[in-house]
C-alpha cells in the first residue's frame, strides 16, 4: 500500500510502498521482490527507514521465542517493541542490558542502529550483549550471525543494509528493583561537566543535559544525571510496596504545534528554566525506571512540538583526545548561530565495537535538536567541518542530511569492511544519499 511516511524528526517525508508481513512466508515474499528497506518502529529521526519502492514494516513479527529465567537469555522476533519487553520482564526482575532514550523502538532497530544508552561507558552498545542475530538476505534465506562473524560485525549498526534482522538473541540483566538511585550534579561550565562525567564513571549510568546557548562563564553549563539500579536496601517504605513500578500512561500531543513555537528565544528560556530547576533539585533521589530512562516517552508525539516543518537531530561523537577542543568549537558555533537548540545531551562513551559502521567510539557524544530550516542546515554544515577536523563522526539513526564525504572520512576502515557485507537489494533514502 502506498503511504506517506517519515522518521521521528518528520523530515523528510516520502510516499513509500509499505508492506506489513505477518508471517515468514509473507516476509520472504516482501524481501525477495526487489529493492527494499526494513522498518521497525520508525524512530530513526531521518530517512534511514524510508524506501519508496518497498518499505517493509517488521512490527507484526514481534513474538517472544524463548526465555531462560536462570540466565536471562532471551530470543525474540525483531519487531518486538522494547516497551513490550519492559512490560513483561521488569516485573520479573530483568532489564535490557542497554537501552536508548526511548522505549518505543524495536529490537531489530536497536541492532540496526547498534543503540547506546546511559551505561555505554561500562556496558558498551547493544551489540555487546547479543548472542546472535538472524538475518534474511534478498534471496529470502536466513543466516544466524554470531558475534565473531563478518555478517554480525556489519549487521550490528548496519542500518538494515546487510539484510533484514529477523530474530535477536540477547542477555537481559538482573535487577533487584525497578527503581533507580539518581544523583544529579550541577556543572557550571563545560570543563566541570566533563570532569563530573569522568568522576561519575563508577556509576552504571551517566548522562548530562547541556545548555548549548549559555555563554561566557556559563558556557556549556550542564546538569549531570548519574544513576544506578536501586537495591532492596536502597528503597524505603514508599517504594517497597511497589518494587517494580509499571510504566506511566502516555499523554498525546493531539496536533502539530505552530512552527514559531520553538525558536531561539523559547529555547533560551527553556534551557534557563531547566538549568535552574536542576540547580534546585541537585542531590540524590529515587525515581522509577520509566521516568529515569524514558522521560520524553510520557508525551506521545512530542516531535509534533516542532510543527509541520519537522526537525533535525544532530548527534556527533568525537574521540577522547580531541573531545574537549571539538566540543568547545561545536557548542561555540551553536551559540553564535541563530537557531534554537533544545535538549542538548552530552555523554561519555566507553570503547566502541570498532567494527562495521557502529556509531560509538571512545570519547564524547553530543546530541541536539534543531527545528528544520535552511539556516539550521547551514549551521549543521559548519558543525560537520568541526566534527571532521576532530576525527569525529555522526550517528546514522539521527541523520537526515549528512554528506557522503563526512560518512567516508568519519567511518573510515569500518565502512570498507561493511561494504563487503552489503546486500545491494537493501537501500534506504539515507543509504542512497550517503552512497552506502
Amino acid at each position: 500500500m502506498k503511504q506517506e511516511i517519515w522518521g521521528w524528526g518528520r523530515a523528510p517525508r516520502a510516499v513509500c510502498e509499505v508492506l506489513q508481513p505477518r508471517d515468514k512466508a509473507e516476509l520472504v515474499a516482501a524481501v525477495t521482490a526487489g529493492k527494499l528497506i526494513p522498518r521497525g518502529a520508525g524512530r530513526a529521526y531521518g530517512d534511514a527507514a524510508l524506501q519508496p519502492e518497498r518499505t517493509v514494516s517488521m512490527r507484526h513479527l514481534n513474538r517472544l521465542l524463548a526465555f531462560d529465567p536462570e540466565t536471562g537469555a532471551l530470543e525474540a522476533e525483531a519487531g518486538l517493541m522494547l516497551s513490550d519487553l519492559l512490560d513483561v520482564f521488569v516485573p520479573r526482575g530483568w532489564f535490557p542490558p542497554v537501552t536508548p532514550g526511548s522505549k518505543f523502538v524495536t529490537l531489530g532497530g536497536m541492532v540496526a542502529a547498534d543503540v547506546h544508552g546511559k551505561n555505554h561507558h561500562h556496558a558498551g552498545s547493544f551489540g555487546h550483549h547479543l548472542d546472535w542475530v538472524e538475518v534474511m538476505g534478498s534471496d529470502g534465506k536466513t543466516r544466524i550471525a554470531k558475534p565473531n562473524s563478518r555478517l554480525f560485525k556489519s549487521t550490528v549498526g548496519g542500518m538494515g543494509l546487510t539484510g533484514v534482522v529477523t530474530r535477536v538473541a540477547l542477555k537481559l540483566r538482573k535487577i533487584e528493583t525497578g527503581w533507580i538511585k539518581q544523583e544529579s550534579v550541577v556543572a557550571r561550565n563545560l570543563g566541570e561537566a566533563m570532569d563530573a562525567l569522568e568522576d561519575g564513571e563508577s556509576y552504571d549510568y551517566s548522562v548530562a543535559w547541556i545548555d548549548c546557548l549559555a555563554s561566557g562563564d556559563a558556557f556549556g553549563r550542564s546538569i549531570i544525571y548519574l544513576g544506578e539500579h536501586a537495591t532492596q536496601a536502597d528503597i524505603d517504605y514508599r517504594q517497597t510496596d511497589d518494587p517494580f513500578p509499571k510504566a506511566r500512561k502516555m499523554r498525546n500531543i493531539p496536533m502539530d504545534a505552530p512552527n514559531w513555537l520553538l525558536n531561539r528565544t523559547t529555547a533560551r528560556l527553556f534551557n534557563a528554566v531547566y538549568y535552574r530547576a536542576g540547580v534546585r533539585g541537585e542531590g540524590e533521589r529515587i525515581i522509577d525506571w520509566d521516568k529515569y530512562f524514558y522521560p520524553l516517552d510520557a508525551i506521545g508525539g512530542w516531535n509534533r512540538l516542532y510543527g509541520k516543518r519537522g526537525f533535525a537531530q544532530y548527534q556527533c561523537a568525537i574521540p577522547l583526545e580531541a573531545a574537549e577542543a571539538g566540543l568547545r568549537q561545536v557548542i561555540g558555533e551553536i551559540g553564535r548561530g541563530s537557531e534554537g537548540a533544545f535538549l542538548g545531551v552530552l555523554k561519555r562513551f566507553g570503547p566502541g565495537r570498532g567494527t562495521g559502521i557502529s556509531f560509538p567510539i571512545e570519547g564524547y557524544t553530543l546530541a541536539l535538536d534543531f527545528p528544520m530550516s535552511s539556516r539550521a542546515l547551514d549551521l549543521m554544515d559548519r558543525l560537520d567541518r568541526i566534527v571532521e577536523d576532530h576525527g569525529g563522526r555522526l550517528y546514522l539513526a539521527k541523520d537526515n542530511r549528512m554528506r557522503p564525504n563526512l560518512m567516508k572520512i568519519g567511518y573510515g576502515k569500518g565502512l570498507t569492511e561493511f561494504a563487503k557485507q552489503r546486500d545491494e537489494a537493501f537501500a534506504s533514502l539515507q543509504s542512497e544519499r550517503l552512497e552506502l
Partner: protein
Amino acid sequence: MISDAPVLILGARSDIALAIAHAFAGRGHPLMLALRSPNRLQAIVPDFEIRYGVEVTLHSYSATKLTGQAEFLDNLPQQPQIIVCAVGLMTDQEEAAGDPALAKQVVETNFLGPAVMLEVAAERMAATNEDCAIIGIGSVAGDRGRAKNYVYGAAKAGFAAWLSGLRQKYAATQLHVMTVKPGFVRTQMTAGMNLPGPVTVDPDAVAEDILKGLEKKHHVVYTSVWRWIMTIICAIPEPIFKKLKF
C-alpha cells in the same frame, strides 16, 4: 468471568482476534485458537507462554464448513467457557455483488458458518450451568446497508440477528451472548482504505472494549464513539439516506 476460564477464538489470525487473544491471555485465560492454517500462528505459542504464562493450542478450522461442529468441539483439549467469533471476510463490493459464488462465500464466512458453529456450542455451554459467554464480532456495516459495502453488510446483519436470537433463547441460562460492532479499525482488512483518523481505532482498543463489555455483561458493544455515529446514521430517513454518498 473467572480468569482461568478457557477461551476459544474462531478466526484467530485476524488483527482484532490477536488483540483479543492478548487481552484474555493477559488476564490469565488459557486459549484455543482456531484458524484455517494453524502453522501460521505457531510463533504465538512460546510467545504467550513467556509473556503471560498461559497455554495456547492451535486448531484447524474452516469457517465455511457447515458440518462437523460437534466433532470440532469434542476434539478440543478442554471445553471453552468463552467463545469469541472473529471470523470475517471483506471482499470488493462490486465483485461480490456481481459474482454469486463470491457473494455466497462472503455470506457463509461472515454469517452462516459461524452461526451454525455458535448454535451447536451455545447448547452445550448452556447445559453446563456455569458462567459462560459467546462473543460474536459483527460490524457497523450491518446496521444499515450502504451502496459501498452491502454484501458484507448484509452478511454481518444476518449474523447480528442470529446472535440476538441466541441471546433471547438462552436468557434464562448462565450463557451470556454479546454482539460486538467495531467501527473503523486499523487492520490488515482495512489496510489501504482511507479511514478518518479521529474515529478509527487500533485493534487493542477494540479488545479492551470487548473485555470491559464482557465484565459488565453488555449485550451489544460498539467501540469508541460508534454507538453515537450509528444512532445518527440509523435515524436518517430513507428518502434522504438513499441520496447520501458515503
